[in-house]
């Protein structure tokens, strides 16, 4: 058992992290390569200034009109995305493991705060799932896949939460937590989660077309 745990908490972490990072990187390179081969002209409309202008405008909470029209969804979604990165990276338990294997450490979140924030992420995901069932236009767009995507993010947070509180089946909970977290990392480059890198690209292109060619705002 220890050997199995040693594998999933050791090499497997690095393997999934590599798949995550290089998967996205390769995806990025392929996109640029394909644009250069088939749609070279797109690049001639892209400017750094207008790309950043658009991306930044969309990072300011409630600045784009669209986000003000659905403030609850947008607010929850905004916090959710921040927490999705902040929580795992600044979680004490994760930092201790990092310190153990790489002698690297950084300040950690307070455990109680992390606990509440984890609940917030879980609630946000439940909210997304309910919204997919209740809001008619979103429901129309939703397929089973979308619920699966929510489930994939939900799993590591729920299992992590339960494991922290050592409520039941502790060992299995940790193993489920580690495996679901690694699965999530691995699946990112191969699923719509890759909007991590494609969204800034599409935003940058639209921002450039609007800003550079059409002299208009796109938010």
């Amino acid at each position, binding site marked *: 058992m220890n050997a199995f745990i040693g594998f999933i908490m050791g090499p497997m972490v690095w393997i999934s992290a590599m798949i995550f990072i290089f998967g996205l990187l390769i995806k990025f390179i392929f996109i640029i390569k394909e644009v250069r081969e088939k*749609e070279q002209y797109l690049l001639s409309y892209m400017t750094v200034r207008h790309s950043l202008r658009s991306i930044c405008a*969309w990072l300011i909470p409630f600045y784009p009109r669209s*986000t003000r029209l659905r403030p609850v969804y947008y607010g929850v979604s905004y916090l959710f995305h921040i927490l999705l990165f902040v929580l795992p990276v600044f979680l004490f338990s994760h930092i201790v493991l990092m310190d153990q294997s790489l002698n690297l450490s950084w300040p950690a979140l307070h455990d109680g705060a992390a606990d509440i924030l984890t609940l917030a992420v879980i609630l946000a995901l439940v909210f997304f799932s309910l919204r*997919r069932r209740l*809001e*008619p236009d979103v429901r129309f*767009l939703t397929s089973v896949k979308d619920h699966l995507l929510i489930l994939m993010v939900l799993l590591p947070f729920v299992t992590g939460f339960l494991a922290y509180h050592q409520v039941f089946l502790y060992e299995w909970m940790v193993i489920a937590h580690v495996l679901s977290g690694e699965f999530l990392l691995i699946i990112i480059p191969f699923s*719509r989660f*890759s*909007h991590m890198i494609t969204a800034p690209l599409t935003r940058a292109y639209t921002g450039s077309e609007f800003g550079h060619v059409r002299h208009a705002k796109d938010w």
Partner: protein
Amino acid sequence: MNENDAEIIEEATDEAVEKGLERLTSERISEVINQVLHKETGARFKAYVDTCMRCGLCSDACSYFLSNDRDPRFSPAAKVKQTIWEMLDKKGKVSKDFLRRAVHIAHLECNVCRRCSMYCPFGIDMAYMMLLVRRICHKLEITPQYIQDTVNSHSVTMNQMWVKEDEWIDTLQWQEEDGREEFEDLRIPLDKQGADIMYSVIAPEPKFQAGLIYQAAVIMHAAGMNWTMPSRPGWDNSNMAMFTGDNEISGRIARTFFETAAKLNVKRIVMGECGHAFRSTYDVGNRQLAWTMAPIEVVHAIEFYHELLTAGRITIKEKFSKKVTLHDPCNVSRGRGLHDMARKIVAMTCSDFVEMTPNREHNLCCGAGGGVINCGPPYKKERMRNNRAKAEQLAATGAEVLIAPCHNCHSGLEDIIHHYNLNMEVKFLGDVLFETMEKKIYRPGE
């Protein structure tokens, strides 16, 4: 809504679509769809499809969605779902009923106004995808009849309305003659080599709005411009092929247009108040000819009037006193950012101006553009239903006069005003300028 709404059966209303569908075989359908979706697109298309998280933020952008009590089928992403996603899922093996619905969605439930790409957090260009669907329909030869006829006209005559060459020249000379009764030296110079400006219009102007050419000539004359109009095909700057996905004819139109200007050796092209023609020459046609930007500077009427007024070439005699509001056409506001310039012209010519909300880049589409009105009378009732949100937006202004610097918007808004009994008069910016300006007789050297 109930669960079955996704499978609504489209009525067979359009003869061209029906005859086209009859001719199709399932092999042909999947061959064309896969060819367009995989060979004619690239990473951008894939990114648009892969990036959409089905969040629904685009819904509120669409006037069709807003006009139909937030019916989910009219959300921009839903239109992509009912067309592109399904075509990709089924690898092009779709039924004729599916195609009938796809033609309808792409041609009549989307104005390709691009408002949704401003509401999508990722900036996904859904208008581009609707144009891809139209491209597929074009290659399958199931484009709606009326708009296809305009493309046929383009193909034969290089103008949108079957205007013959002699009719064109005749109309210009007739307007010149009328003008000279009031302004003795007024000219509409044809084919004047090396003029500063080539003035260009869309075919509906000589066909049934010749007065607009008269107005333009008066403005040019009063401002003392060195201008010309071409007598040969290439004078029409409209481009309906751009909206049917007939990229080949669209490219021919743009080439003829720019070559005409190049042969006249003009410094720049000024165009009348038309939005889609501006999109075609400023944004799309140049790309089809492999020019990053238009090879000869293209100036929309809004920019031109603004220039004449600020340079003092035109002076205002008496401001327009009725309460006016301004409609920002998608192709010159979202498409060129001319909304603030238009407001400045209104401020210089009108004394009572009220904004409609939302405005500028966020203005609601007139519901006619993007080729929708060009699909013709069979669809007018439906179009009026789909324009309810626009009607409400107009009514809320309480203005007497609605200024719309775009031909498509102009026609669409007229329809809306009649249908919804709004007591409004639609005017071009040029109409207002013509009414308020000092109509002096230009003498060289003054």
